[in-house]
């Protein structure tokens, strides 16, 4: 701890906005607001899931071929990485509640590292080789061995869903980094961990979306 012993950490004196009666009320309001935001996120992905459902029903052969082009080992590895990151994020809240500051900071950094690993694996082992082979969405499609005329559509669905999900992972990593900066200043502790909780909810939602995207894209054939 670099903080001087005479200075108390910031979490011991949490402030709240004037329109709240107490810090606890602010916490509850923030949390409900975040859950409302998460519902809009779910409905954003609901549109994509719906597009997936319609196109799979219309063009089952293209989607069956498509899932066979994906390597479920890489998908499984990425799923486990995200699950572990979700675990460390849930632990962050626990460490803040127990005032274990070192573990809190380490877990935040570890969660960011898991997110980075997820995105790196996605780009290096999935997007880049596939793009080079011509497995591209829509009119960019150049893969010469397709057996179904609707395979470009499959790649459109694949790149849109996983791309928007990867963007969420990236945004989540940035948010967790800001939480890490706050944690370094001693902002979070037993009485005050609203930021950790809110960003954690976002990160778990990203995990939740992937839990459904993974079987839909990789496993259903």
């Amino acid at each position, binding site marked *: 701890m670099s903080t001087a012993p005479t200075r108390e950490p910031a979490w011991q004196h949490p402030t709240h906005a004037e329109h709240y009666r107490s810090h606890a009320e602010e916490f509850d309001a923030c949390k409900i607001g975040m859950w409302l935001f998460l519902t809009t996120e779910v409905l954003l992905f609901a549109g994509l899931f719906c597009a997936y459902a319609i196109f799979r029903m219309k063009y089952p052969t293209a989607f069956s071929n498509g899932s066979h082009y994906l390597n479920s080992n890489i998908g499984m590895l990425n799923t486990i990485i995200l699950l572990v990151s979700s675990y460390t994020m849930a632990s962050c809240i626990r460490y803040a509640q127990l005032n274990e500051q070192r573990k809190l900071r380490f877990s935040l950094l570890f969660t960011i590292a898991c997110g980075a690993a997820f995105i790196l694996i996605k780009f290096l082992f999935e997007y880049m080789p596939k793009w080079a082979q011509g497995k591209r969405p829509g009119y960019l499609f150049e893969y010469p061995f397709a057996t179904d005329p609707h395979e470009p559509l499959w790649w459109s669905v694949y790149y849109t869903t996983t791309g928007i999900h990867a963007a969420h992972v990236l945004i989540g990593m940035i948010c967790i980094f800001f939480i890490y900066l706050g944690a370094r200043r001693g902002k979070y502790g037993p009485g005050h961990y609203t930021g950790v909780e809110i960003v954690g909810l976002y990160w778990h939602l990203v995990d939740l979306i992937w*839990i459904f995207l*993974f079987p839909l894209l990789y496993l259903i*054939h």
Partner: protein
Amino acid sequence: MSAFDPTDPHGFHAHEAHHGHHVVSGRTLVAVLGALVFFTVLTVMCSRAEIWVGNALHIAVPHWINVAGAMSIAVIKGTLVLLFFMQLRYDNPLNAIIFFFCLFTLALFLGLTSLDVGSRGMVFPWKANEVIAGGNSVGLTRQIGGVPMTGQVPIYEWAKEARPAQLGPKAFAAELAKHEAEHPHAPIVSDASHSRPRTGVTPGLFDAQAPEPHAGEAPAEEGH
């Protein structure tokens, strides 16, 4: 219930004495992570087993087993994440209710769409086919007046030919007259008090070709 507090008539602070949030134990979190990883490996193995059974034992596993298996495992994993990692189990129930209604909306959205798209073929077999520009009656053979005809054009174009062939010229003329009577088209007149409908005010700007001159009007000449 505690005694009435005049400084806090609505009981906003009453719960603060025991407001301490639930601290999920480390063992619970590890157990949930273990279950999640187990189900991930299980769902991948199930998917591979179905392919293996099909290839090695020549047993065709119905497709719905693949879909139902993968999705039910995903639902179990999602529930674990929601209950323990997102702490809905220990949280204010209002948050769970909000999310439940979101999932209800999602179910309506996906369910009704699937019901529509998935059952179209039960009513009209040609609607089960892929969607192509101009409708998909091209190549479809139907009985028109006892004679099988194969469509070469979009279905509404085809109907313009098929209906007269089915009814005969006299009956069709009567139907046409009835249609004209029910949906009268205003005659296109152009005189001093009626202008010709067109898109835009500048002649020739929006029309594909120069408009017809008005009655009694000499066409504009170049160089004027």
